[in-house]
């Protein structure tokens, strides 16, 4: 497999594929962050989580279309409004979904699985009906295109660097939010014991709604950044949902640190394997490696160990 490459070439390939995998890592982390909140903290398996990613993507695409059509001079700056807007739209839809559907299913996990799967199909059909079945792309600002070349053989895409910076900021922000604010404490206590949280004065209904909506909003941001590396379509999110769940389980439920490490591990491994073999074979090898790791660490790599 490596015979036809020199050592220098292999080194450059590894570095560039690693940076290629960096964008994937960030999408995994952004999607995994939402799942970390909704599955790791609330115990809800949201099969429609990928569709919130798509909501973020479409918001970004429609915002770019609006800017191109009506405010072309604003094209280099619209990203800073489109990204919070993607968060806001996904957050709002998440709030409504929790209120109408999820809140009625908290003690019925299997029903939640089925209901959210149904919801994902409904949302996909809504995207087809109201936006269109064809793939859609956002017009990106010039400064986001191109690459940075630290050496003659290495090219690092700028959009990858921007996604990386955003992911670091968001992950750090989420850590600070959950660990240092009263809302974060409410979220963590409610996820661990809803009854006891109520018995200490926490309105768990509002906390659950906020937590779910926050997870959807974070996924929306992931979707907005997805448009900088790929086009979007009604089913675009389904390509990432299985891998995002794997990232979460491999890292250990409830461990943000584990989530980031396992996202990095999966994204880099996937990116490097896909360079040397077909995409299908790369997936086979990837899942085999995950299977072996989970057989050894059944609760994930970084699960917490305390007396309950």
């Amino acid at each position, binding site marked *: 497999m490596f015979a036809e490459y020199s050592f220098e070439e292999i080194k450059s390939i590894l570095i560039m594929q690693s940076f290629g995998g960096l964008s994937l890592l960030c999408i995994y982390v952004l999607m995994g962050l939402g799942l970390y909140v909704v599955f790791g903290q609330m115990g809800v398996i949201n099969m429609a989580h990928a569709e919130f990613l798509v909501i973020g993507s479409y918001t970004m695409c429609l915002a770019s279309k609006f800017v191109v059509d009506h405010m072309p001079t604003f094209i280099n700056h619209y990203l800073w409004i489109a990204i919070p807007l993607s968060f806001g739209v996904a957050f709002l839809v998440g709030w409504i979904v929790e209120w109408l559907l999820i809140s009625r299913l908290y003690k019925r996990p299997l029903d939640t699985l089925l209901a959210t799967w149904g919801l994902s199909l409904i949302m996909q059909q809504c995207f087809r009906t109201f936006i269109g079945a064809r793939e859609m792309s956002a017009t990106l600002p010039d400064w986001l295109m191109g690459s940075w070349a630290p050496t003659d053989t290495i090219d690092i895409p700028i959009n990858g660097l921007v996604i990386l910076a955003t992911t670091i900021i968001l992950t750090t922000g989420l850590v600070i939010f959950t660990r240092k604010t009263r809302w974060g404490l409410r979220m963590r206590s409610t996820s*661990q014991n809803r009854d006891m*949280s*109520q018995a200490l004065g926490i309105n768990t209904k509002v906390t659950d709604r906020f937590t779910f909506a926050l997870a959807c909003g974070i996924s929306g941001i992931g979707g907005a950044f997805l448009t900088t590396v790929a086009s979007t379509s009604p089913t675009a999110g389904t390509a990432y949902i299985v891998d995002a769940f794997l990232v979460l389980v491999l890292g250990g439920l409830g461990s943000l640190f584990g989530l980031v490490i396992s996202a990095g591990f999966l994204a880099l491994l996937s990116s490097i394997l896909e360079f040397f073999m077909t995409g299908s074979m790369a997936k086979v090898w990837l899942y085999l490696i995950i299977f072996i790791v989970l057989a050894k660490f059944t609760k994930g790599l970084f699960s917490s160990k305390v007396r309950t």
Partner: protein
Amino acid sequence: MLTISNLKAGYGESSVIKDLSFTLKENEILGVMGRNGMGKTTLFKSLIGLLPAFGGEISLDGEDITSYATYKRVYSGLAYVPQGRMIFPNLTVTENIKIGLEKTKAKKVPDYIYDIFPVLKEMGHRKGGNLSGGQQQQLAIARALVTEPKVLLLDEPTEGIQPSIIKEIAQILKQIRDMKGISILVAEQVLSFSLDACDRFVVIESGDFIHEADRADVDPDKIKSLLAV
């Protein structure tokens, strides 16, 4: 202070508490004694609102709280220490206490908590799930106390606790009552603890009180016989 009139509660269609009425007086520690399965925990869960009342009325300082959600009852002045303590295992000791500050919105744990439970200050950064049973019980009481309640509900605080600590918990309850001027309703099976801590005793059987005695005229042998299986 806390008045319960004709309370009925249970699980699904099964009624456990049947037409129960009693009053918890101001500054009183009332012990609810009873064997397993007699309705102590059901009574406490229905008082805090974790189980809906089928009928009757719960009023606190004249305010009817029967239809209130659990968190609203906390705002009205009830605090709850459940059986098994239900510490948040993945939160630190300080975070566990801070959850109780939801009602007062205070940012800092009040100093008197660490005066009563100095061990909680030493172990502030340790995860709640890593404390011993006795330490977890102190944490559960501290967490309820910071809600600044009028009435503290304790469900079997001695369960799984070593005898030397049980005596300490009885003293702590009296100290809290005197310091904060609150009333305490405590469910128990350990007679020695109740005799140490309580001003009045009731014995519950099949969801109804079958015996009541003040501290002055309590007959420990009579209660012991009622608690015997």
